């Protein structure tokens, strides 16, 4: 591929074209970033018990080396011209079917660069944390094998230069998620949660498969280069269809409405899994897919509207669910669902929002992973109890955990100067600039976020102690607190990526640029309004949970809203009634049909033949005279035939 300046490589619609240079120099090491965790997974999973003693360090080591390589590659990319930052490395031709060729190529550009850093960086930190967290688990080596498998698949997903390559990584992370959610296989709830996650993901995968198929039918190829170059030649109906199918895939993987019910159940897995997969990386794959396919989404207004609607619904849904959950991990999961709703909302706003979505993705990765690891630390100190009604007054017992968790808390509710303030505020601003209702949803969501996160903080750390009798909370060992501190630092400082608009400029060659629309009240006015809403949320939470005593048992006399939130807004009930029960009835009907009709035909034919032969055998009565009659009849028939032939 020759070097082409970006001005020539852009379409007249403004959406950029993927036109990558070949990977030479340090970029030829790109494949190692994926290969190292893959090799680690292979060694740990195939090596067996021999690798138990040092397996976890190998797991940490591969991801650490991948992180260092990502850093080197990132700085190498920074060193190139801004129009020249797309590099492609051809690994091998996967398959050829007629005129359709799929190559396994790696595409390294600005978007993949930040994702690589996020995955390997936060992933490495969580790997280190897991060494301590899973210390007493005898299957720890296997855990690290699955974690490495996940990291390798996620890296494949973000580095692929082709929709089929993305699908490969997509399925890989789905598999790793299943294996890790159900890691404690002896727990029936964990096994059920793993199955639920996988099956609902499967529904989303239909979107990606059909979308890729439609892309192939329309453009003749599924590689980003070809599709982005020819995107404006397809009809708008086709583009909308492709967009909606890719949105379905994103809903499945990122737990957006209507495929959101699996995320809270996925908390059955060990806490590092929740942190890495269901907060920082796998659930953000949907956002990555939409942003990567910006050359399609930028051209269809309707698909983008669909994305925005899904984003709004989910961010409110996740926030409401988080308000009533007593399980700390489930509350954080509801929060994840809501924050990803923000990212999807931003991605649906078109070129104005793609970079903001990625920015929020990065900051969310930092503070959510931080808070999940903090929750793990709290659980470690309270004998793995997840019920917040049994916590209280942990700030004295676990100071480091408290401080790092507090930094994450301030980041997520959007208090300056922490990371969340910068990313979430920009999204709310852009939402208002696009449409008032959308902006209002985002603003209200910010208020509810402040409410439930303050509730969580108060119930866990500040209120009076409500511990179980045999619980003696203590600070976690250093191998667990050091990652907490690292992530807290990132949550605090991560917002400075927006300084001078660095992140938007960095990603512009990938996602395109837009005209900044300014609001009537201006950016600063918007931030003030948001802070007021946040303050109201904190105040309400303080009134309910800070001033009054928190009951140890969950109250049963609650409002209809609380009941709805506890039931996760009836998502499971809806799935059960609308999909599972009709499905079972349909299958039972089919099985009855098969048993009675199809088997009936088969057995009926057999018994018909049996009956016929029982009837025919009566002709064999043993009497010679009957047989003689048969002979004569045959002779008469032959005569008849002869006469017919000769005299007709």
């Amino acid at each position, binding site marked *: 591929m020759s070097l082409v300046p970006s001005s020539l490589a852009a379409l007249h619609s403004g959406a950029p074209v993927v036109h990558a240079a070949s990977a030479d120099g340090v970029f030829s090491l790109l494949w190692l970033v994926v290969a190292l965790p893959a090799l680690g997974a292979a060694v740990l999973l195939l090596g067996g018990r021999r690798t138990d003693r040092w397996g976890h360090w190998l797991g940490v080591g591969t991801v650490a080396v991948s992180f260092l390589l990502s850093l080197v590659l990132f700085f190498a990319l920074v060193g190139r011209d801004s129009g020249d930052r797309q590099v492609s490395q051809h690994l091998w031709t996967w398959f050829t079917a007629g005129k359709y060729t799929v190559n396994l190529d790696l595409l390294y550009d600005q978007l993949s660069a930040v994702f690589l850093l996020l995955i390997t960086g936060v992933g490495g930190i969580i790997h280190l944390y897991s060494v301590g967290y899973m210390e007493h688990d005898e299957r720890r080596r296997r855990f690290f094998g699955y974690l490495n498998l996940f990291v390798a698949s996620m890296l494949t997903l973000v580095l692929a230069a082709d929709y089929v390559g993305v699908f490969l990584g997509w399925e890989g992370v789905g598999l790793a998620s299943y294996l890790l959610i159900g890691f404690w296989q002896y727990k029936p709830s964990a096994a059920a949660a793993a199955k639920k996650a996988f099956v609902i993901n499967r529904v989303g995968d239909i979107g990606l498969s059909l979308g890729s198929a439609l892309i192939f039918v329309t453009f003749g190829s599924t590689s980003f280069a070809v599709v982005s170059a020819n995107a404006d030649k397809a009809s708008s109906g086709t583009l909308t269809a492709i967009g909606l199918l890719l949105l379905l895939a994103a809903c499945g993987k990122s737990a957006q409405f209507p495929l959101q019910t699996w995320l809270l159940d996925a908390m059955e897995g060990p806490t590092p899994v929740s942190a890495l997969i269901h907060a920082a990386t796998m659930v953000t794959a949907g956002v990555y897919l939409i942003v990567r396919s910006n050359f399609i989404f930028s051209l269809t207004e309707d698909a983008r509207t669909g994305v925005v609607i899904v984003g709004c619904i989910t961010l409110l849904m996740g926030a409401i669910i988080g308000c009533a959950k007593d399980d700390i991990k489930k509350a954080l999961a509801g929060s994840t669902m809501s924050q990803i709703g923000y990212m999807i909302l931003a991605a649906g706003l078109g070129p104005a929002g793609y970079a903001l979505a990625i920015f929020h993705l990065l900051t969310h990765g930092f503070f959510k992973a931080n808070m999940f690891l903090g929750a793990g630390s709290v659980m470690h100190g309270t004998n793995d109890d997840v019920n917040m009604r049994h916590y209280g007054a942990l700030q004295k017992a676990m100071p480091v955990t408290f401080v790092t968790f507090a930094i994450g808390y301030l980041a997520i509710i959007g208090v300056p100067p922490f990371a969340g303030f910068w990313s979430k505020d920009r999204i709310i601003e852009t939402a208002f600039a696009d449409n008032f209702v959308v902006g209002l949803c985002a603003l209200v969501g910010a208020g509810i976020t402040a409410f439930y996160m303050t509730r969580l903080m108060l119930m866990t750390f500040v209120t009076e102690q409500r511990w179980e009798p045999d619980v003696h909370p203590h600070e976690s060992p250093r191998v667990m607190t050091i990652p907490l501190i690292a992530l807290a630092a990132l949550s605090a400082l991560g917002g400075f990526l927006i300084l001078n608009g660095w992140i938007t400029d960095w990603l512009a060659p990938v996602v395109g640029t837009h005209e900044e629309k300014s609001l009537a009240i201006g950016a600063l006015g918007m931030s003030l309004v948001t802070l007021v809403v946040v303050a109201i949320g904190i105040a309400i939470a303080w009134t309910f949970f800070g001033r009054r005593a928190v009951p140890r048992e969950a109250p049963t006399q609650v409002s209809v809203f609380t009941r709805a939130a506890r039931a996760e807004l009836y998502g499971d009930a809806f799935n059960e009634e609308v999909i599972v029960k009709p499905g079972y009835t349909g299958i039972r009907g089919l099985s009855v049909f098969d048993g009675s009709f199809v088997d009936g035909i088969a057995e009926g034919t057999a018994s018909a033949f049996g009956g016929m032969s029982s009837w025919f*055998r*009566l002709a*064999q*009565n*043993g*009497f*010679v*005279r009957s047989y*003689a*009659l048969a002979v*004569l009849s045959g002779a008469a028939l032959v005569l008849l035939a002869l006469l017919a032939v000769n005299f007709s």
Partner: protein
Amino acid sequence: MSATPFIVLSAILFTIGCLGVLTRRNAIVVFMSVELMLNASNLALVTFSRANGNLEGQIAAFFVMVVAAAEVVVGLAIIMTIFRTRRSASVDDASLLKY
């Protein structure tokens, strides 16, 4: 003399012989019906010989008679043997070859 009446007579005698085989139960009467059938075919053969003007038909009829004689000898010996053991000459007694 045309040949057709003789052939028709032969056909009628043959059919009556068939009916005898099918209807009578006494083994010897069945055998006699078979002989009737053979005689009917002999008549046809002789008629054809006359119609075609050579003696082949008569030779064939001659051989039929010889073979019929041999057949009657053996057949009646068999019937007699069966009668000695079973004290019955009914054709319906041999009915074990059935379902």
